[in-house]
C-alpha cells in the first residue's frame, strides 16, 4: 500500500538541471531516509513535493498522493494540501517559529487556516497536540513564547504544528541537525512514535548515516541530483552496491592514521579556570552573573591531541576563548609551558604559540582580502620580511594540500573544505605549539571531513604540535584524540583516555551522552576498510 509514489521527478533552475529522474515510494507507518552530502538535491526533492521550489525552478515528472499529482497541482489546491495532507519540519527550530506569537496560537493557526476548527476548538486541539509531543500543560501553557523555550522544545512545537491536522505525509528536513545529541535522541523517538501510532509516512532527510540507520525502514542515497542506491536500510548498509555509497560510508567511519608521540612535557596548563558573564539586570538591583566555566583544570602535553566534548551552552567555547587569550579569567590561571600566563595582555611572541581554527568556513575570512593576506595575518605577531612571508605562505598552502598560486585568489573562489584548509594554513604559519580546533570539522560533509582529519593527523605527525579538539561529535573525537574531557554546565565531569571514556564511561552524564549518540549497528559495516 503506497501513500506517495514519486516517478522521474526532475527539477531545473533557470535551465540548469538540479534533480534527474528521482523515483521512490512512501508507505504509511514507515520511515524513508534520504541521505546525501550538501548539494546532492535532498532538500530540493522535498521542496519540489511541496511546490515550494525557489524562484525560476521548473519541476517535471510525477508525484502521486491519493491520486493527486503534486507536481502538476494548482497553487490553490496545494494550499489545501500543505499542512492538511503534508506536514513539514525544518532544520532550524530557532527561526522556524514566529517570535511574536505564542506557541499555542502558532499550533492553532494551522487548524484555523484549514477551517478544521473554530478559534476555541483550535486552542483545545493545540493543547492536545502539544501534550502529544511531550510539552505538558503545567510546564508549557499555550501562552508561552518561542524565546522562552530551548532548541529541542521549539522543535517539538514545530512538530506539533506539522502534525496538527494529522497529515498522512510528514517531511522532515534535517530535523535534528541543529540539536544536541541527547535532544536529538528524544526528537527521533518522538517522530518514530508518531509514525507508528498515527500510521504516517515520514520522509527523513539527513546527512547523518547513523541517524538513518537507527530510524529509517528504507533508505535512498542521493548524489548530484540522482538516487544512486535505494532499498531496505540494513541491506543498503550491508551491500553498499554503488561506488559512491561505498565512499560515503567509508568516510563516515573514517579513522585517520595517527602515530601517537605524546611527550611528557606540559605545554598548556589550565588550573581552576573560572569565567563569568554579567547578566542583564533591572536598574538599581545587584549585578547578576552567569558562571560559564566553573573551575576547569587540565594539562595538555606536547604532541597530544586532547578532546573537549559537551552539549551547546556547556561552556566549551567560552573556555576555548580564554585559552586563546581573547577573554580574561575571573579566577584560576592558564599557562603556556608552565610559566607564561595566557590572557588578553600576553606578549605577541607568546601569542604566536597559540592559534585556532574555527567552525564556520564562511565566516572565518575577510571576504575582501586575498588568501595571501589572510594566511599571512598572524605575521603581525612576529617580525618578517615580505619575501620571507610570501615563501612561508606558499609553503603553508602546500602543506595543507593547496598550491602557492592559490595565494592570489579570493576566498569566495574556494569550497567549504578548501576554506578549512586555508584556515589551517593560517593557524600553522606561526609554527604554534597549540592549535585549538573549535568544531573545526562540524560544518563539513563526511568525505571532506575525513580528508581534513587526515590532514590534521599528518600535520601533527610532522610538526608535533598539540591539538585541543572541541566538538559535540563523539565519533570525530574518537577518531582524532588521545584523551578526552567531558564538560557539563561549566565543569569537566570526566576525563581520561578517549577509548576508555567513550567505551566505559563512568560519570552518569557521559553515559547518557554516549547512549544518545546514534550509531550504525556494528555488524552492518563489516569490511568497511576493505572498500
Amino acid at each position, binding site marked *: 500500500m503506497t501513500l506517495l509514489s514519486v516517478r522521474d521527478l526532475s527539477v531545473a533552475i533557470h535551465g540548469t538541471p538540479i534533480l534527474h529522474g528521482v523515483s521512490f515510494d512512501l508507505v504509511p507507518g514507515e520511515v524513508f531516509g534520504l541521505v546525501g552530502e550538501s548539494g546532492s538535491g535532498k532538500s530540493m526533492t522535498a521542496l519540489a513535493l511541496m511546490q515550494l521550489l525557489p524562484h525560476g525552478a521548473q519541476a517535471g515528472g510525477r508525484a502521486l498522493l491519493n491520486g493527486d499529482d503534486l507536481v502538476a497541482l494548482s497553487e490553490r489546491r496545494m494550499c489545501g494540501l500543505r499542512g492538511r495532507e503534508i506536514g513539514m519540519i525544518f532544520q532550524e527550530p530557532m527561526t522556524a517559529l514566529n517570535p511574536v506569537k505564542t506557541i499555542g496560537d502558532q499550533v492553532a493557526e494551522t487548524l484555523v487556516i484549514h477551517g478544521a476548527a473554530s478559534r476555541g476548538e483550535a486552542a483545545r486541539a493545540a493543547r492536545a497536540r502539544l501534550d502529544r509531543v511531550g510539552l505538558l500543560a503545567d510546564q508549557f501553557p499555550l501562552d508561552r513564547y518561542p524565546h522562552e523555550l530551548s532548541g529541542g522544545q521549539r522543535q517539538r512545537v514545530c512538530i506539533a504544528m506539522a502534525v496538527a491536522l494529522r497529515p498522512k505525509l510528514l517531511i522532515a528536513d534535517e530535523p535534528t541537525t541543529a540539536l544536541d545529541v541527547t535532544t536529538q535522541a528524544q526528537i527521533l523517538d518522538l517522530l518514530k512514535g508518531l509514525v507508528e501510532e498515527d500510521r504516517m509516512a515520514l520522509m527523513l532527510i539527513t546527512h547523518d548515516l547513523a541517524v538513518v540507520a537507527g530510524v529509517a525502514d528504507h533508505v535512498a542515497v542521493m548524489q548530484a541530483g540522482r538516487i544512486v542506491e535505494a532499498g531496505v536500510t540494513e541491506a543498503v548498509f550491508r551491500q553498499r552496491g554503488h561506488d559512491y555509497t561505498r565512499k560515503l560510508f567509508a568516510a563516515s567511519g573514517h579513522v585517520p592514521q595517527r602515530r601517537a608521540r605524546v611527550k611528557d612535557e606540559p605545554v598548556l596548563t589550565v588550573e581552576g579556570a573560572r569565567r563569568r558573564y554579567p547578566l542583564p539586570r533591572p536598574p538599581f538591583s545587584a549585578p547578576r552573573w552567569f558562571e560559564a566555566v566553573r573551575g576547569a583544570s587540565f594539562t595538555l602535553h606536547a604532541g597530544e591531541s586532547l578532546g573537549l566534548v559537551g552539549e551547546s551552552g556547556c561552556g566549551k567555547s567560552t573556555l576555548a*576563548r580564554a585559552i*586563546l587569550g*581573547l577573554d580574561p579569567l575571573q579566577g584560576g590561571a592558564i599557562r603556556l609551558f608552565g610559566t607564561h600566563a595566557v590572557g588578553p595582555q600576553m606578549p*605577541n611572541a607568546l*601569542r*604566536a604559540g*597559540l*592559534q*585556532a581554527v*574555527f*567552525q*564556520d568556513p564562511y*565566516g*572565518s*575570512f*575577510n*571576504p*575582501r582580502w586575498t588568501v595571501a593576506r*589572510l594566511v599571512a*595575518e*598572524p*605575521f*603581525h*605577531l612576529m617580525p618578517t620580511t615580505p619575501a620571507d612571508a610570501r615563501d612561508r605562505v606558499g609553503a603553508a598552502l602546500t602543506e595543507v594540500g593547496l598550491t602557492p598560486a592559490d595565494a592570489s585568489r579570493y576566498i569566495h573562489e574556494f569550497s567549504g573544505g578548501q576554506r578549512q584548509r586555508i*584556515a589551517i594554513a*593560517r593557524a600553522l604559519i606561526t609554527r604554534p605549539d597549540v592549535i585549538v580546533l573549535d568544531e573545526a570539522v562540524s560544518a563539513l560533509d563526511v568525505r571532506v571531513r575525513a580528508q581534513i582529519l587526515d590532514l590534521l593527523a599528518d600535520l601533527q605527525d610532522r610538526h608535533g604540535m598539540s591539538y585541543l579538539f572541541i566538538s559535540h561529535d563523539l565519533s570525530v573525537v574518537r577518531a582524532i584524540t588521545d584523551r578526552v574531557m567531558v564538560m557539563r554546565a561549566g565543569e569537566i565531569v570526566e576525563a581520561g583516555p578517549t577509548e576508555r571514556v567513550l567505551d566505559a564511561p563512568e560519570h552518569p552524564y557521559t553515559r547518557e551522552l554516549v547512549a544518545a549518540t546514534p550509531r550504525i549497528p556494528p555488524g552492518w559495516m563489516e569490511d568497511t576498510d576493505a572498500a
Partner: protein
Amino acid sequence: MRGRASLFIGGGLAGAFVILALLSFVWTPYPYAAMDIAAKFRPPGALHWLGTDQFGRDVAAQLMVGARTSIAVAIVAVGIGIAGGVPLGLWAAASRGTWVDEVIQRGGDLVFAFPSLVIAILITAVFGPSALNAILAIGIFNIPVFARVTRAGALSLWTLDYIRAARLAGKGRARISLEHILPNVANLLIVQGTIQFSLGILAEAGLSYVGLGAQPPTPSWGRMLADSQTLMGFAPGLAIFPGMAIVLTVLGLNLMGDGLRDLLDPRLRRRA
C-alpha cells in the same frame, strides 16, 4: 533586475545634473548674472530655452549654476558626516558595552532630538547666512546618522570568526576596525551616503528658500523658488523648472541609493 533598472534610471538622472553642474564652469547659455530688463519674463523658447526671470536673467543658466551650489553643499555635508560619523561608529562598535559606546550613542541621540532644519536655521541666523554655514549646519546632523549606520554594521561583523582570527594575530581594536571592519561596512556607507546626499540637497534648498543659504548673486534652486513665488500667476515656469530640478535630482539619488543597496548587499543579492 528591478534593482538594476532603478540604479540606471537614478544614476542617469543624478548624473545628468552633475554633468550640468560641471558644464556650468566652462559654458552656460548666458552669463548667469547678466540682467536684461528688456527681455524679462520671456517664455521658454529658442533664444532662452527655459525663459527668463523678472530681471531678464536666463533661467537655464541659473539652474546650471544652482546645481553647482546644491551639489557642492551636499557633497561637503556628506563628507562632514562621514569624516565625523564613521570613526565614531567604529569606535563605539569596537568598545561595545563600555562607557565610550554609551557616550557616543547618547550623544547621537541628543543631536537627533533637535529638529535638524530648525537648528540649521538657528546656526545660519546666528553666524550669518552663507553657503558655508549652511554646509556646516547640514553636515553636523549627518554625523550621528553615519555613526549609527557604521556601528550597526560593525557590531554584526565583530561577532564573526575572522575578527577572532585577527585578535589571535595580536591585532588591536583600532587596527581591526580599519583593516577588517571599515572595508566591510563600506557598502552600507555608500548607500547611506547617496540618501544623505539627496537630503542635503533638500536641506540646502530649504535654507536658501528662507534666504539663509547661498547669497545673491550666486544662484540657488531654493532661492529661485522663493523669488518666483509671487510670480506664479503669469510666469509659472520660474517656479516649475527649479522645482523640477530639485524633485528629479532627489528622486534620482534615492533611486540610485536603492539600486546600489540591491547591488551591494549580498543578502539581497542572494535572494534575487
